[in-house]
């Protein structure tokens, strides 16, 4: 659907050349929700804007639906942009236009008649659950409502692709999840390909199927969201993940505890087996769960447990071996052996 072929973007800044995007080369499939993660200044936003040519590329090609759009100009470009909706962190609605006028603008600009525009705006407002706000001005809407209007506007001309530039970064948690579920619904209902850039990894975890991780202009890792979150290959990704998952045992507890403390990671199928119970039974040891959680990424479970093991040295060693073999990951936090 969207293909980046060795795309680079560089800017001249104070007589120095700054590489905002460096050789991005990957594909976003039709109908998927694709996330691009990375800290600020990583080039995510620049990369996203190359898709609808808000940002021109310095080298490389952008293919949309198999067609090279890199050199589209004027009419061709405008038709391309009608098919690619875009939403923004700060919603970017015209403040002196009503909700209706904001959406109607893009329809009229695409040459729709007054009657067509009227029916379509109504349809769109129903879709985003804002029918009663048609004549309100953006200043009288909540953040979530503004983003819904922006989504309606982005999809007005039957866009097949929706680009989201930090769509939930200005919203509170509750509104974030309602916007994300709306995006998920739109993806399911209309098969719209969605590209989301965000620094919030939770957003990617909750709706994306695949994602790319960017650092300093380069795509460092790309793959299934579940794989990237459970088994990051790159140091940078691991670092990025550790900033967001505040799931660590406090130091003073580790120091106080007797015996080994281990951190177990369960993934997918093995998250459902009572491994710890087997180990305790087989090797005749005791265990004490200190901290634990299970979260779902793409509906697949990911479990993390901090466990203190109690028993003799030999059986403990065997138990740890057994657990390491039967879980996704085992890390010994404190030996105590």
């Amino acid at each position, binding site marked *: 659907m969207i293909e980046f072929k060795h795309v680079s973007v560089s800017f001249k800044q104070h007589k120095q050349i700054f590489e905002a995007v460096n050789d991005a080369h990957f594909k976003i499939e039709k109908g998927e929700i694709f996330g691009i993660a990375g800290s600020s200044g990583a080039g995510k936003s620049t990369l996203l804007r190359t898709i*609808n040519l*808000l940002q021109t590329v310095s080298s490389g090609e952008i293919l949309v639906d198999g067609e090279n759009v890199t050199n589209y100009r004027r009419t061709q*470009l*405008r*038709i*391309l*942009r*009608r098919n*690619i*909706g*875009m939403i*923004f962190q*700060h919603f*970017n*609605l*015209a*403040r*002196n*236009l009503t909700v209706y006028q904001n959406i109607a*603008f*893009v329809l*009229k*600009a*695409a040459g729709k008649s007054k009657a067509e525009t009227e029916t379509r705006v109504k349809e769109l407002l129903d879709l985003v659950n804002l029918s009663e706000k048609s004549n309100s*001005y*953006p*200043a*009288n809407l909540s953040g979530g409502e503004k983003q819904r209007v*922006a989504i309606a*506007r*982005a999809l*007005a*001309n039957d866009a097949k692709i929706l*680009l989201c530039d930090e769509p939930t970064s200005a919203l509170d948690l509750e509104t974030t999840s309602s916007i994300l579920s709306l995006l998920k619904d739109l993806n399911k209902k209309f098969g719209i390909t969605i590209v989301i850039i965000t620094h919030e990894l939770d957003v990617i975890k909750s709706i994306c199927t695949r994602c790319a991780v960017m650092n300093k202009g380069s795509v460092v890792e790309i793959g299934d969201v579940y794989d990237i979150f459970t088994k990051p290959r790159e140091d940078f990704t691991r670092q990025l993940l550790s900033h967001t998952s505040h799931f660590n045992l406090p130091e003073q507890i580790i120091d106080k505890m007797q015996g080994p403390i281990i951190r177990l990671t369960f993934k997918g199928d093995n998250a459902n087996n009572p491994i710890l119970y087997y180990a305790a039974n087989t090797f005749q040891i005791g265990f004490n769960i200190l901290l634990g959680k299970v979260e779902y990424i793409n509906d697949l479970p990911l479990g993390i447990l901090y466990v203190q093991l109690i028993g003799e040295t030999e059986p403990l060693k065997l138990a740890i071996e057994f657990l390491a073999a039967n879980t996704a990951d085992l890390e010994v936090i404190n030996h105590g052996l």
Partner: protein
Amino acid sequence: MDFDLKAALILTFGQTMQMVISSLLAAIIIGGSIGLLLFLTSNTLFLKNRVINQIVGVIINITRSIPFLILLVLMIPVSKAIVHTSIGPNAVVIPLAVAAIAFFGRLSEASFSDVDNGVLEAAIASGASKLSIVLKILLPEALPSLIKNITVTAVSLIGFSAMAGTVGGGGIGDLAIRYGYQRYEPEVMFICVIVLVLLVQIFQVIGDSSAKKLDKSSK
């Protein structure tokens, strides 16, 4: 006393209005277009063009840096060429218009620049043509600020038009100087000043209230 104050006031008030309104219209149409051009040639989303932007900018700056009294004199040959006279309100409209165009050109550029660039970017991303974005997004978004700046321009023009009296432009300012100052009739001066104050107040109130009415950016 053969001097009829009421008749003189009505006549000079009409002259002042004629000078202010016609130069204000020129400022809105020509100055506004120049402001728009300055904005469009400075914004990468539209028609960024450093050369045009700088040339127009320098011309505006030069015009604005000439003191109005000197501009009045400098423009005499131009007025003669255009309206075939160098005295009276018709003649002073030319220097007034030139000053107002340059003044409002800069102010309207600022009004356009104040429009949230994100809103314009969203419109560009929707595939709308630049012309329709300018007409249906940029103008309505900038309108409250444009109206405030039109008010500022109008108020300065009232002041400038009084100055124009000194080169035979007529108007209330001229009346105040000729009768009030040169003929030692302080009450004429006083009445003239009151009329000018009221005029400025009226412009300000109309400008403020219409700007407020059109601005939907706050609850």
